[in-house]
């Protein structure tokens, strides 16, 4: 899985790179428009993570270039909060999804997974994690072959966890993932707790114990051990 990360801010680029690495991606980076343009013209990527505000050009032009070349690459754009127009323009041009800066890295992972899944790269029709088998197309979850019935929110939560295995997920990130980022995270911590409790119980009943670990005062983690 080859990704191109286009981000002009060095510190942010570094931390994004670091967070993407455990996902098993091959990530190339471009620091500005010129570099990025050259790379998308020369190489093929499965997904391009693109900051729209670049010092030497508009990221939207890169989306245009990709679409003009009929590139199969998925496009995930990063936009500033106050540029709704850019966001809409990006999606209209054919970007798959957008993230508003600053975003949660775990959210980035989840969105990236979703894009890849939608585009069905490398025949990734299902997700396997320990005893879990998930068929996202059918929204079906199996624990050791036995179907697990989940509510919509619990299923969303599980997919989110599966996109971030062995990663500490903060309460804020989880809350915003489930309620949309317009919601003040602090309002919904109780609600996360309830959903985790239920999901855990359901997994436990099927014998999938200790999958979800509570990180005291921080959040939750899907543990592969």
């Amino acid at each position: 899985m080859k990704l191109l990360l286009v981000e002009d801010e060095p510190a942010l680029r570094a931390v994004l790179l670091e967070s993407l690495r455990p996902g098993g991606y091959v990530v190339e980076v471009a620091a500005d428009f010129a570099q990025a343009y050259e790379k998308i013209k020369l190489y093929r990527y499965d997904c391009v993570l693109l900051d729209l505000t670049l010092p030497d050009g508009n990221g939207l032009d890169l989306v245009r270039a990709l679409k003009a070349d009929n590139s199969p690459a998925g496009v995930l754009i990063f936009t500033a909060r106050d540029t709704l127009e850019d966001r809409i323009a990006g999606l209209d041009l054919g970007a798959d999804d957008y993230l508003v800066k600053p975003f949660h890295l775990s959210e980035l992972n989840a969105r990236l997974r979703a894009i890849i899944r939608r585009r069905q790269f490398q025949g990734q029709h299902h997700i396997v994690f320990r005893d879990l088998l998930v068929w996202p197309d059918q929204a079906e979850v199996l624990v050791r072959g036995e179907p697990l019935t989940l509510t919509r929110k619990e299923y969303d939560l599980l997919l989110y966890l599966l996109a971030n295995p062995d990663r500490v997920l903060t309460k804020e990130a989880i809350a915003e993932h489930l309620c949309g980022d317009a919601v003040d995270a602090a309002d919904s911590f109780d609600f996360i707790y309830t959903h985790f409790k239920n999901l855990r119980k359901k997994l436990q009943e099927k014998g999938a114990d200790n999958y979800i670990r509570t990180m005291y005062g921080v959040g939750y983690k899907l543990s592969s051990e």
Partner: protein
Amino acid sequence: MKLLAATNRYYLALAAVLFAVGSGALYVGVNQALRHEVGEQLDIRRHEVEQLVRAGRPLPGPPFESGLEVSAGPRPLGFGDVLLRDTLEHESVPHRQLTFAVRPAVGPPVWVTVRKSLVETDDLVRVILATMLGVLAALLGGAALLNRWLTERLWAPFRHTLGALRSYDLQQHRPLALPTPAIAEFAELNLALTHLSQRLVADYENLREFTANAAHETQTPLAIMQAQLEQLLQLPALEQDPAAAPLLAELYGATRRLSRLHQALGLLSRIENRQFAAAAPVRLGELLAEKSQQLGPLLEARGLVLHLHAPAPLVLHMHPGLADSLVHNLLHNAIKHNEPGGDVTAILGSNYLEISNPGADPGGDPARFFERFRKHRATADSPGLGLSIVQQIGVYYGFGVSYAFEPAGRRHVLRVQFGA
């Protein structure tokens, strides 16, 4: 009171006093003069009579002589006023009389009284007074009318300036364009105001740019901070120290809050700067349903019930982002300041949206709820900008946003009126 009305009032008061005093003086003066004149005429008559007597001629008697009375007995000498009955018109007529004694060459002295009617004199006084008072009144009325007309004419530039000031909107980023009237004072005023507005526009522009730049420039470090903190939370070393991770998590939450605050302030300043020119038809009913669904988890978490009444489809022409923000903030506010087991009721009428929820009487001035950073509780996590944003959007599109507390049902009611 208008400045001119005030000055006019003083002028009129002065004129009225002068008018009254003048009329009195005129009456007294003219009356005196005429009586004096009559007195002189009577004196002349006396001389004539005395000369007649001295020449030895008899005194003229009636019917040839009227206004002359001869008496053998003594009478008080000198001038006097007397009312005599007019036999023709049957009314009392004032007369002035002069009594004197003459000694004919033969016989005893006689007392002669000459009289003159004052009727003509009174008529004269009346005519003179009427004429004078008429002229004075005309002068006074004329002055008042002239003043009014001058007000209309001369003060026109002033009223124009006032109108321009009243409709002046700093957010249009344009200084005042005032003409230079012929009246020096007004020209000076306009010049000073134009300079003032230019300075204001420049200052405002600076502030706006600063805010926009500051908001934009802080967003990047915030993004870096947040991402690095999240990575830091992944460190296995954190598991060694149980206190470290929650600290980091709190830091992470604070960064997130800061970024939210920034977003809200940025949005506010962008609305104030009228940077949402684009508009599209927004179906409010659908938006309301969509937002309610989005906030569903939050309602569920709080154990709240949502009642949505949107009988009529309402389409507004506004920026979709702002419509989104408006509905979101209203609903979010109703959820946030709710009571456990309460409800959120949204009613979409033909030209208004009303969202209400139960809660305790907040007390205080309702207008203050729209102030920035106004919080329900000092400890609340949210920065308290939601209603400010609602109000600003209202101002931007001319919607009336009002808040009321209904003591009967103990409900907070927020109402947005879309036009008339």
